[in-house]
């Protein structure tokens, strides 16, 4: 091996990142070349010195408080990550969702009336011919969620209606 080749392999040699056969070749060269030995030693010294540069420990108090500081910052920034949801939660959007919901339910009820004619006394509109196919909003237990977050319930209702019935309802209107 030439000295230039050895120079290229100095760091991998010190890092034990060479094939065994290459290691043997480099070692053989080093045994007979004072210049490359000095070069190798200089690089080794660099690594030793770099490794010896310590990071000062900020102390136990810093480490104990660190998770809390992160937690506070996450909590502070979380609302911005949920901005989209907050837009939906804004009063105007809530009203829009509620109005959409009423519109869909109203359209569905109207269709039931048109399909079945006048509703016999004592029979609710939800007992029309398509009623069995339609998901009932009563199927889900909304009450506990409604108390916690009525906006979320409105969105959930609208989503369910949309997913399961909207296409059919609008196809028939």
């Amino acid at each position, binding site marked *: 091996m030439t000295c230039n080749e050895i120079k290229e392999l100095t760091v991998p040699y010190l890092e034990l990142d060479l094939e065994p056969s290459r290691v043997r070749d480099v070692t053989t060269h080093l045994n007979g070349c004072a210049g490359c030995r000095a070069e190798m030693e200089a*690089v080794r010294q660099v690594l030793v*010195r770099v490794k010896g*540069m310590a990071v000062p420990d*900020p102390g136990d108090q810093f*480490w104990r408080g660190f*998770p809390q500081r992160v937690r506070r910052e*996450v909590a502070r920034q979380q609302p911005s990550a949920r901005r989209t949801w907050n837009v939906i939660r804004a009063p105007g959007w809530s009203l829009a969702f509620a109005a959409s919901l009423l519109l869909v339910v109203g359209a569905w009820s109207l269709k039931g009336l048109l399909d079945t004619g006048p509703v016999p006394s004592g029979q609710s509109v939800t007992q029309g011919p398509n009623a069995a196919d339609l998901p009932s909003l009563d199927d889900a237990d909304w009450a506990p969620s409604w108390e916690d977050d009525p906006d979320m319930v409105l969105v959930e209702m609208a989503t369910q209606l949309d997913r399961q019935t909207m296409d059919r309802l609008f196809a028939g209107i």
Partner: protein
Amino acid sequence: MATSDYQLLDRYAAGDESAFEELVMRHQKTVYNLAYRMLENHADAADLAQKTFVQAFLHHRSFKRESSFRTWLYQICLNQCRNALRDRARLVHEDVEELALAAPQDTFTQVARSELRDRLGQAIRTLPARQREALVLRVYHDHAFSEIGVIMSCSEGTAKANYHHAVDKLRRALMAGEG
């Protein structure tokens, strides 16, 4: 058996706040050390380590788990470091321009003397960011080059090349100082 980072993340996603704390405590020193090696002062390192965890927890759902959580933290931390170093370089440039107009000449002499005291530190400071990252990850965090490649979003060969260039520059700097 110790709980894995993935399990802790799942627990955190399910609302378990103690999992959050455990994850932070498990990795806080490693992340802080990496930040300190890159930025070389406590205030910046502490700030950047905090930002790293905040980003990780705010966006934990986007973590695809194709690497370890620690590797992902390293990636976030190094991205933040690059931004911080870029900002710092801009500020230093502006500061030096102001200083050149305002400061007495001996300020520069003092700065030069203090820099000479730590030639190795200065040489590390002047390494290109990628070379410095490879050096820090290899020497101080004992990562394999394959993992350094993942963290730095480059090939293993590029990671090795960055590391070798860094070591070579440091060697030259030390030899120049001692010669």
